[in-house]
């Protein structure tokens, strides 16, 4: 059913449709509305899962870990500091192959404290072993949840999945979201039936100590599984399309890329803004398109190479930075093409940190003024009093 609702509400509905047995979460802006809505569903008797109020995000993650290990489908949501506080548990879940799903309402990291959107929180967790998906709009964020459970719970994958949606920009935006019926979601997503779980009939030990003669093998397998997940993410996106008629991309999505020479690369809600920008530039005769990274982990190197055969320049726009190196996504793109026959030039821009608005005019300007330049880690729309000399686009 199509509803004009907040992104958080759309996610909450979809989470409920996935029938989690256990939800544990701790409030933090801008994730709060998701768990408030789920709490209300529980209070109204609509949600059959348990809702566990916890003392911290660390506790929330630990509760869902325990629940998932006991054979339940578990869910949590968080952001920013909360995600960092969960960090130790997140790594543990991936190592223990527990296919939990959490939603991250992406937000900047303190200090200085900022409750507004960027992707710094997710980037901290990029090496956790989780599958990491990024949503462009609220429909996609909602639709990602049944897909995420189905990907993670596949017996050959068994990995947790993080669904990233931009805090405030998506979580607090009211727009149309089509929420499928319970029956439809049930047809798509079967109940979680793990082969192994904490069970008195088959009393296995989970979470062993691995001495040096074993630890590396577990990590090797985790890497191998991430690679294996690539095909499954694509397959399940197709399956979802077949069932619900909606497709937001597989590992990636593309927009007007057929003959594009310069291509924007980005993740999350900025893709929507970029679509308007690209239409505008196309109307002026520019050969420009968009490469949307939907799956950040596993990182779709092969798929990116496949669609970029004719592309001359990639303009990577990202809402995070790895201090002392630069933009994370731009480095991933450079490594994607390292040693390849065709190597498009990679330009890297950092923007939208801590909720800095990203107006289309800034994107158009950076498109224009970056032509023919070598750029990496260029901050967009800095205040002029801070921007270095020669900055391409300032406030």
């Amino acid at each position, binding site marked *: 059913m199509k509803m004009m609702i907040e992104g958080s509400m759309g996610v909450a509905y979809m989470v409920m449709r996935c029938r989690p047995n256990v939800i544990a979460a701790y409030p933090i802006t801008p994730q709060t509305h998701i768990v408030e809505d789920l709490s209300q569903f529980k209070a109204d008797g609509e949600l059959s899962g*348990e809702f566990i109020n*916890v*003392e911290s995000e*660390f506790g929330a993650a630990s509760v869902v870990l*325990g629940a998932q290990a006991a054979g*339940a489908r578990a869910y949590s949501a968080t952001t920013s500091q909360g995600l960092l506080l969960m960090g130790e548990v997140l790594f*543990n879940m991936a190592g223990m192959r527990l296919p939990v799903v959490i939603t991250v309402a992406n937000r900047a990291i303190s200090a200085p404290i900022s409750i507004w959107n960027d992707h710094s929180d997710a980037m901290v967790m990029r090496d956790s072993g989780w599958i990491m998906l990024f949503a462009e709009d609220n429909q996609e964020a909602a639709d990602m949840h049944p897909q995420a459970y189905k990907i993670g719970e596949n017996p050959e994958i068994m990995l947790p999945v993080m669904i990233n949606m931009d805090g405030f920009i998506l979580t607090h935006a009211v727009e149309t979201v089509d929420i499928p019926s319970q029956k439809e979601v049930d047809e798509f997503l079967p109940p979680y039936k793990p082969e192994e779980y904490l069970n008195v009939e088959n*009393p296995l030990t989970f979470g*062993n100590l691995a001495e040096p003669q*074993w630890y590396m093998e577990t990590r090797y397998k985790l890497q191998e599984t991430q690679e294996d997940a690539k095909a499954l993410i694509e397959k399940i996106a197709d399956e979802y399309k077949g069932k619900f008629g909606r497709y937001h991309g597989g590992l990636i999505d593309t927009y007007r890329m057929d003959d594009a020479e310069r291509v924007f690369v980005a993740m999350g809600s900025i893709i929507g803004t970029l679509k308007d920008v690209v239409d505008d530039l196309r109307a002026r005769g520019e050969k420009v398109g968009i490469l949307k990274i939907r799956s950040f982990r596993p990182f779709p190197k092969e798929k990116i190479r496949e669609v970029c055969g004719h592309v001359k320049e990639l303009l990577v726009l990202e809402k995070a930075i790895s201090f002392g190196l630069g933009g994370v996504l731009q480095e991933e793109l450079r490594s994607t093409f390292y040693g390849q026959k065709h190597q498009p030039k990679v330009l890297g821009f950092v923007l939208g940190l801590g909720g800095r608005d990203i107006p289309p005019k800034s994107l158009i300007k950076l498109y224009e003024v970056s032509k023919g330049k070598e750029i990496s880690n260029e901050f967009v729309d800095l205040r002029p009093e801070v921007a270095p000399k020669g900055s391409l686009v300032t406030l």
Partner: protein
Amino acid sequence: MTESTKTKKQKPPVEESLLTCGHRACAGCGEALGAKLVMDAAGPNTIVATSTGCLEVFSTAFPQTAWRMPWIHSLFENSAAVAAGIEAALRNKGKHDINVIAQGGDGGTADIGLGCLSGLLERNQNVLYVCYDNEAYMNTGVQRSGLTPYNARTSTSPSGTESFGNQHQKKNLLGICAAHNIPYAATATVAYPQDLMMKVKKALKIPGAKFLQVHVPCPLGWIHKSELTIEVAKLAVSTGLFPIVEMQYNKVTRTRKIGKDRRPVEDYLKLQGRFKHLFTDTAKDELEKVRQIAQANIEYFGLE
């Protein structure tokens, strides 16, 4: 002893423990003994979540495990929360007849894991939390914890010209837990296995959150002979330094009286290298402070 009396008293063969042999605990390990007793009291219809520490390390070196019940280790500070998740999952699936036990050492419980433990107790989820209290971080080489007793020497509270060891008092963990107004909170010790096992069985019959602090000597960290584990544990009780009590809804309901068996604290301290520095002329005042701690315990719980 005649043949007939022997036949009369005959018992069935010993069943294999749920924490079985082949684990790698030190010889004389009080924690291994405590955990074995807890598991065998709980029985096989139990799921266990364990925090990082000696107990996990010595029992689960991949690809083997000494546990014969469904068992999970996640992290140092979260066994209470992991158990809470297990309990919620079982409840949601309508499996109400399975025991859930969370366990950890004193560091994992009273220090780094106190937040998760408090959350569990606050929610009064149907879980028994067992803290194996060997009074320091033994897994990492005997560093002090919040449950290290006053004046005990550890590698991070050494004795020296300016110090007599740990200068902080042992945290009142039982009181902290009981103050959550949970239906059952108690202490026990490997010195009295029957009492310990009775408490585990009793706790598991009570719905809601239960807490049990088990005193478990560590021959390595306390520096005593391995065969003295039980004897040392008994002396902790009879000196008043480790009171054995039961509390229900934050009220003391039962205590193990010391009475005539009361022994001076020196009898306990002298068996352990961690208190050796207290037996010098300059340490007389400090020894007196330990006596006062024992006396305060005895008076508070009415152990005489």
